[in-house]
Each structure stands twice: as structure tokens, then as C-alpha cells.
């Protein structure tokens, strides 16, 4: 499903070169629920952005659902992103001027799907996250947990092969975080492949597999060892 081999990512600014990922290898199979943890600045978001085609990588090879994405142009990447990937962000990232129905509609319109089909999918997705009755509500009228569930509905509606979540519970209190986690687990049980970055080790422990990123590389440490390490990468010192 997701296959990265020897991927590296270098951010160059006038003053510094940051090696956000180096010799990064990972394979995620269909139907897996992978939790990604690691110290702040270790490259988790960079990994997720590359996985979701939001950013280019400097070197290596990445196949998404069998397609080598390295040589694709921007338009092809956009289309692939739209079809195969659903994003869930820490800050929910709903569009404030659109109600929930129209928010969930956004990725579907980019796919030029017929209106009836869009409506069916939007209603199904909002039902799955328990927000069918809030379709006409604007994001500002909802709690954080509801907003994140709406964002999950938006990620689901396109029926993506891969759900990528970057600290989806980071802005939520623990009760709401558990709700969202349960929703993700339910989706995984129904067959969605999920890669979730989190700093909440308790939630991470509930995933099928844990990956620990340190210093831009997948570490060999297991979760218990990782838990014992400080949360800030040593190299940042």
C-alpha cells in the first residue's frame, strides 16, 4: 500500500540544511493501523506529508498503491492525492465559510463526481461519524471533537485507500480524543488503512503496529523503550 525506500528529505534555507528524513524505509500494508511516534522535530510530519503527496522528497523511492510517485507532475499528484489519500489534521482544517455538508463535498467536487453520488457519499460519511443532523452547521458552531469528526467524514467521503492523520487528537481533551480514536479504530475494522502520528503513547499502544521515528529515521526501539526516551530529539540541542 505505502512503500518508501531510502527516502530522504532535505530542507534548504539560506542558512541551514535540515535533513528531516534520511534513509527512511517503511512499508505499510493494506488494512493496517500504524501509529507513528517520536520526538518533536524528528520528521513525523515530513514523513506524513511525503506519504500524502503534500511535499516532494529529495531522494529515494516511494510507491503509493503501486504507483511510483517520484516522477509525477503537480497535477497528477493532486489527482492521486484526491483519490487515494484522506487527510486528518491536528487543527481540523475545516473551511470556516462552508457548512459541514459543503466541507465534506470539497474533495468530491475536485474529482468532478456527479451531484447525486456526492450527496449520497456526504450523507453516508456524516452518518458514520454521527453528525448527520449537523449537516447545515458551520464549523464554528461545533465542538472540537465534532469538528474533528467532520474532518474525518471529509477524509472518508472520497473512499481513500489510505487515511493519514497528523496528531488528530492533539487539540482535543481526553474524552474527545478517545471518541476520535474509537472512530478511527472502527474505520480500520471496516478495512481502512490508517497511519496516525501521535505523541499520546496510550493511544499509540492501541494501534496494531508502532513506528518510532528519531532523527529522521525509523528507529529499532520498541514502544516501551521509546517511552523511556526524552520527548525532544537529542540533535536539536
Amino acid at each position, binding site marked *: 500500500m505505502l512503500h518508501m525506500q531510502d527516502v530522504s528529505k532535505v530542507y534548504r534555507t539560506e542558512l541551514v540544511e535540515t535533513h528531516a528524513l534520511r534513509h527512511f524505509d517503511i512499508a505499510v500494508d493494506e488494512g493496517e493501523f500504524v501509529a507513528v511516534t517520536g520526538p518533536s522535530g524528528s520528521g513525523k510530519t515530513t514523513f506524513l506529508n511525503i506519504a500524502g503527496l503534500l*511535499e516532494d522528497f529529495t531522494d529515494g523511492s516511494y510507491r503509493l498503491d503501486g504507483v511510483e510517485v517520484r516522477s509525477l507532475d503537480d497535477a497528477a499528484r493532486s489527482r492521486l*492525492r484526491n483519490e487515494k489519500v484522506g*487527510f486528518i*489534521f491536528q487543527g481540523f482544517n475545516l473551511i470556516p465559510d*462552508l457548512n459541514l455538508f459543503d466541507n465534506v463535498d470539497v474533495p468530491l467536487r*475536485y474529482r468532478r463526481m456527479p451531484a447525486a453520488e456526492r450527496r449520497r457519499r456526504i450523507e453516508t460519511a456524516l452518518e458514520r461519524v454521527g453528525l448527520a443532523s449537523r449537516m447545515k452547521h458551520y464549523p464554528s458552531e461545533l465542538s472540537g471533537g465534532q469538528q474533528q469528526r467532520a474532518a474525518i467524514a471529509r477524509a472518508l467521503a472520497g473512499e481513500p485507500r489510505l487515511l493519514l492523520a497528523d496528531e488528530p487528537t492533539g487539540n482535543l481533551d481526553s474524552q474527545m480524543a478517545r471518541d476520535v480514536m474509537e472512530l478511527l479504530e472502527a474505520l480500520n475494522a471496516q478495512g481502512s488503512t490508517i497511519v496516525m502520528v501521535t505523541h499520546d503513547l496510550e493511544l499509540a499502544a492501541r494501534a496494531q503496529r508502532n513506528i518510532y521515528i528519531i532523527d529522521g529515521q525509523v528507529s529499532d526501539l520498541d514502544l516501551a523503550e521509546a517511552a523511556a526516551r526524552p520527548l525532544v530529539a537529542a540533535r536539536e540541542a
Partner: protein
Amino acid sequence: MNVHPILATLRRHKTAAGLIALEIALSCAIVSNAVFLIGDRLDRIRQPSGLAEAELVHFQLVGITRVEDPEAQAAEDIAALRAVPGVRSVATVNQIPFGNSSWYSSLNLEPEQQNPTMQVTTYVGSEDLLETMGLSLVSGRDFVPEEYVEFQQAQSDPEVVIPAVIVSRAVADRLFPGENPLGRSVYVWGAAPQRIVGVVEHLAKPNDIGGPSSEHTSVLMPVSAPVQYGINYLVRVDAGRRDGVLEEGVAALEAVNPSRIVLEDRTRTFEAFRDDYFQDDRAMAWLLVGVCVALLVVTALGIVGLASFWVQQRTRQIGIRRALGATRGQIIGYFQTENFLIATIGIAAGMVLAYAINGALMGRYELPRLPWYYLPLGAVVLWTLGQLSVLGPALRAAAVPPAVATRSV
């Protein structure tokens, strides 16, 4: 088209969108009327006189001392002018098109008519006048020498018969629409009728009295021009010799009788008269052009400003849309569609306003109704203006990287 979500968003930003739509509406309304007025002025400025304008110069003299035989002196003047190199023909004349001062008469179809059929301006002059003016006859003929009457006589003797008249096509069409005007009788001067012997294509009036509806309502009479107090000569020359003839002509006239004043501002090329005459129209046309340009520039700047502001304000949202799969083209398309919708609302309102302004102008001035095709034309201009204005900001929006969705907080 993804109109629905864009409209939904605009509905939540009514004030800003409304102001731009209003700006577009005002531009649409004012520019279409201004362009129409410019066209109207240009038509006026470009109206044909019917004369061989590029070949004509005009002399005007006033006497200070009494002359024994003014007719003889005029004959002498004409001979002197004819002798100037480059001169092709010379005629006395009472007035010229765009020359401002004008002779008016009522024209009747019956001898003792209560209300005149129409008002006409009356050109008179010596035998070579039609030829000198370079008028083009569409039917009939020039006057023959026997038809000419002395001005003095025509004025003092009510019994005198002026047998013929040449009318402009505008007069012929008004009096005898669809009929042959030749041989028909009209009453312009005196108790006896004048028979129409010729019709000329155009013959503009000396001024605008009577308004646009009486354009070119001119007649030519076989009466000599008055020569006692002042005298006008119209001289047809080789086009390149106009300035030379003016200079040498003045010298020649002074040689005939030095105790006369050559009126400098009336002794000029015909084109100079035309330029002067339409000076206000030209100034007005330029003023209107300036108004149009200023309005369009201000509107374009307004669009660029608002679009830039929105792009900046929505940077994160644009990143999110990119993350959700929007191509760069779809981001550009969003801003273009948004602008198109605002412009369309503005244009629709502008069209209504355009007709309202036009209606007010029609009531106040003698102005025709705004032709319908100004509306689609104005719409296309403003749509194009909007699309061009929004393009820069839209391209900036398309350059927002999708990673903005995950990187910025």
C-alpha cells in the same frame, strides 16, 4: 461549475463582495453611457460638410469707407484672387458650414401657409459657388446664369422672382419622402415659388440651431451674396497651396482696396473653421475618455486589491484545498469563478443603471436611446477586466504549497 460553494462563501462576505459588485455596476453604467456619448460626439465631429474641405480657404473683409460700386469691386477682388497661383475657383458666399453665423428662412409648400413646413439655412453666392464648394449633386443640375438674381433686388423688390433652388438630400427626403423632388415647388423667398432643380448629397449648416434633428437642412439659392458692408470669398485651391493662397490672397485683396479690414479669425482654411467649431466636442470626448479610463482603472485596482486580500486571508484554506486534492488549475479556477460571479451581479445591476442614466440624459438632452448592443459589449469588457485583474492574485493563490495545511498552526 463549482458555483454553489463559491456563492455560499460569498454570502458570508457580502460587504466586500457587494462593494466590488457595486463598483463594477457603476463602471458598467457610466462607461457604457460615456462610450455612447463619445460615439455621439465623434459622429458629430466627423459629420461631412459636403464641401471639398481639404481644398478650401475663406476670406472675409469689412469695408470702412463707402464704396461707389461694390459689385464692381467684388468682380475686381475675384479676378485678383483668381490670379493667385494655385487658385482653381472663387465665389462670393454669405456663410459657410461650421462658420457659425447663419441665415435662416422658413420653407413652405403652399404660398400663404400658416405654419412653416420646416426651417432651412440659406446659402447664396456668385455663379461658381456650387463648383467652388465642391458639392456633389445626386440629381438635377447647378443653376444656370439666367436664374441668378441680385441680392439687393431680391431684398427690396417683393415682386422679384427667384426661379430655382437646390436642396440638400436631407431637405428633399423630409419634404418628399420616396418621391422625386426635382421640379417640385417650394416657397423660401418671395411670393413666387422656387422650383427644385438639384439635390446635393450633403450640405452642413453653419451652426447647430435646431438641434440634431435638423442636421443638413440647407438650401442653395441663385442669389448673389451681399457685398456692401462686408464680403466673404470662398476659394478652392490645390490642397498644398492653402497657406500660400491665404497669404498672397490677402495681399491681392489689399491691392484692390487697402481701406478694408481683413478679418483674421475669419480668413482661414476651411479645416480651421471645422477644428474650431468642434473644439468643445473634442474636449468633451476626451474628458469622457478620461472618465472611462479612470473608472476602469479604479475598478481593476479594487478587484486586484480585494482578490489579493482574500488570497492572503485564505492562504491556509488554499493549502487545505490543495491537500484535499485541488490542482493548481482548480485553485485558479476558484478565484476566476468567484470574480465572474461578482462581476455578473455587478454587470446585471450596471445594465439597469445604464438605462436609467441614459433615460435621464434622453430627457434632458436630445439624445437617442442607448443601443442594446452596448450591454453585451459592456458586459464583455467588464468580465474581461475582472478576469485579467484577478489573474495575478489567483496565480499567487495557486502557488500556495499544500504543506501549508499541516505546517502552519
